[in-house]
């Protein structure tokens, strides 16, 4: 079953098209990283999912439930960490979790989730005194209440210190192992890379790519950078390499005995073979996978 499905989803605010004809399917049981620069439309899509905003055209479903027509039923299946929220300053952390439990009709001890996210010692302090990171943990605790089938998290690591971000990733992984589908947005790439099964990249309201990170790497135009050490630095080597299919460009590195090449992933062996056929002695070679950052820049036209 599909956990989230958007069909031809468009959301316009006046002349601005925040989300532009997006078709997205998130499968049950996966961790889906939703990437894109700020203002790309990630939050708008999530807001439509939560029925904070109504789509201009198109629809969103969660487990087959329309998010606008049956918004409450849809949100009963979700645990949510929304964007731009504020906690109730006068209620304590424990009261927040209690409220979430009452709202979802769940019994239990609020301290269990508070303990899990690491704000147990502040449970009886008013949430107005919490730091940004603590508030973020508290809202995560509220999202975890009732073991939801789908976790929706909008920029979950914002405001967290590195330890907090690490704990967040651990919890998301644990939740996924329990069976929950995890859908989270981020503009910070390293955080997505380590835990996502698949990623989707939003840019200017459009969903420009959806795939596993490996496959995105493979299909990216400037897939791989190759560094080749040769025994002599003859300019004709460059022509040899550039004649190979899948090569973008070749050049001599500054220290003159290394060749740099950018090419598609499949072309690596062909290059080495071509050099060998020309009688060039290849002493050593290394490849550099493009970082997610590079991919991101490529898909979003250099703006991040």
């Amino acid at each position, binding site marked *: 079953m599909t956990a989230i499905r958007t069909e031809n989803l468009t959301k316009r605010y006046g002349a601005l098209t925040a989300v532009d004809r997006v078709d997205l399917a998130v499968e049950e049981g996966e961790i889906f990283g939703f990437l894109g620069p700020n203002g790309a439309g990630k939050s708008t899509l999530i807001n439509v999912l*939560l029925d904070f905003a109504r789509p201009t055209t198109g629809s969103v479903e969660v487990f087959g439930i329309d998010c606008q027509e049956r918004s409450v039923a849809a949100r009963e299946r979700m645990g949510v960490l*929304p964007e731009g*929220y504020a906690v109730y300053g*006068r209620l304590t952390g424990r009261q927040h979790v209690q409220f979430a439990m009452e*709202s979802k009709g769940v019994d239990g001890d609020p301290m269990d989730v508070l303990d899990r996210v690491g704000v147990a010692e502040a449970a009886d302090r008013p949430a107005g005194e919490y730091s940004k990171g603590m508030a973020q943990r508290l809202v995560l605790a*509220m999202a975890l209440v009732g073991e939801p089938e789908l976790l929706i998290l909008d920029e979950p690591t914002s405001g967290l210190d590195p330890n907090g971000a690490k704990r967040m990733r651990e919890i998301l992984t644990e939740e996924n192992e329990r069976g929950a589908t995890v859908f989270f947005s981020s503009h910070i790439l390293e955080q997505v890379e380590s835990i996502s099964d698949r990623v989707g990249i939003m840019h200017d309201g459009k969903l420009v790519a959806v795939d596993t990170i490996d496959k995105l790497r493979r299909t990216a135009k400037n897939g791989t950078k190759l560094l080749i050490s040769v025994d002599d630095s003859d300019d004709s080597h460059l022509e040899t390499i550039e004649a190979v299919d899948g090569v973008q460009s070749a050049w001599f590195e500054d220290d003159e005995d290394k060749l740099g090449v950018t090419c598609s992933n499949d072309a690596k062996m062909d290059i080495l073979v071509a050099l060998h056929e020309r009688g060039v002695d290849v002493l050593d070679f290394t490849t550099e996978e493009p970082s997610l950052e590079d991919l991101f820049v490529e898909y979003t036209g250099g703006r991040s």
Partner: protein
Amino acid sequence: MPWQAIARKEIRGLVKPRSIKLGLFLVGFTFTMGGYLLPTAQATPTTTDYTGYMQGAVTLLLPLFGLLLGYKTVVAERESGQLELLLSLPHSRKGTVFGKFVGRTAVLAMVVGLGILSGSALVAYPFGSLEPGVMVGYFLITGLYGMAFVSIGMAISTMTTSSRLATAATFGIFFLFVVLWPELEVPLFLVLDYLGLANGGLPDWALFVRGLEPGMLYDRIIAAFFGQVDRGRYLGPDAPWFLGEWPALVLLGAWTIAPVAIGYRRFRGTDL
């Protein structure tokens, strides 16, 4: 039920802000003080006397406190982002507005009830007399009156998107209903007279419109039910039925529901 969770949360959070605390104290104090002062003016006061004695204070204080309870309910949460947190839980917008309304009304009813109870006790002891039926009826009608202003405040709160605008609208409503409305009689008469619609006094329909304001309705109901007043343009023997106390009670009831319902209809369709 989810809306009950919201009502409970509202009550938990409500008794803490200073402005609400001050309002709660003031309302309770005023009702109690009235019960303390009435016996100094009257040797053997009754609960009925108390209802008339309190009228001026009540029609000033309850609109203020009712609006105070209502006007920030939704708009402040919307501005800060608390509403996003709340609506990311499985609450409907209807349940949200209803739960908040119930929670805030409960706080109002509690303090009005306690105030009337202690006020009545002071009236009855040692030389006055307590009429439990009057006391309960007075509580219900006065509660309804306060609720009407919570409802109006919440209507403002659901229809505006900035706290500043909501505050301005609230002052406007308070000024219009409490300060300006009682003074409208003469200008209204002059306008109708100029148009040839007044025949020596306001026509019945104009009296009806003028009498629609919650405070006017409340005054009329209290006067008729407890003051046994059966004179005047509204309650006299020649007045048409729709100016009487029972229609007034129905209209006051409508004031408690209609504003918040209209506000909800607006709120339902908007993006946060």
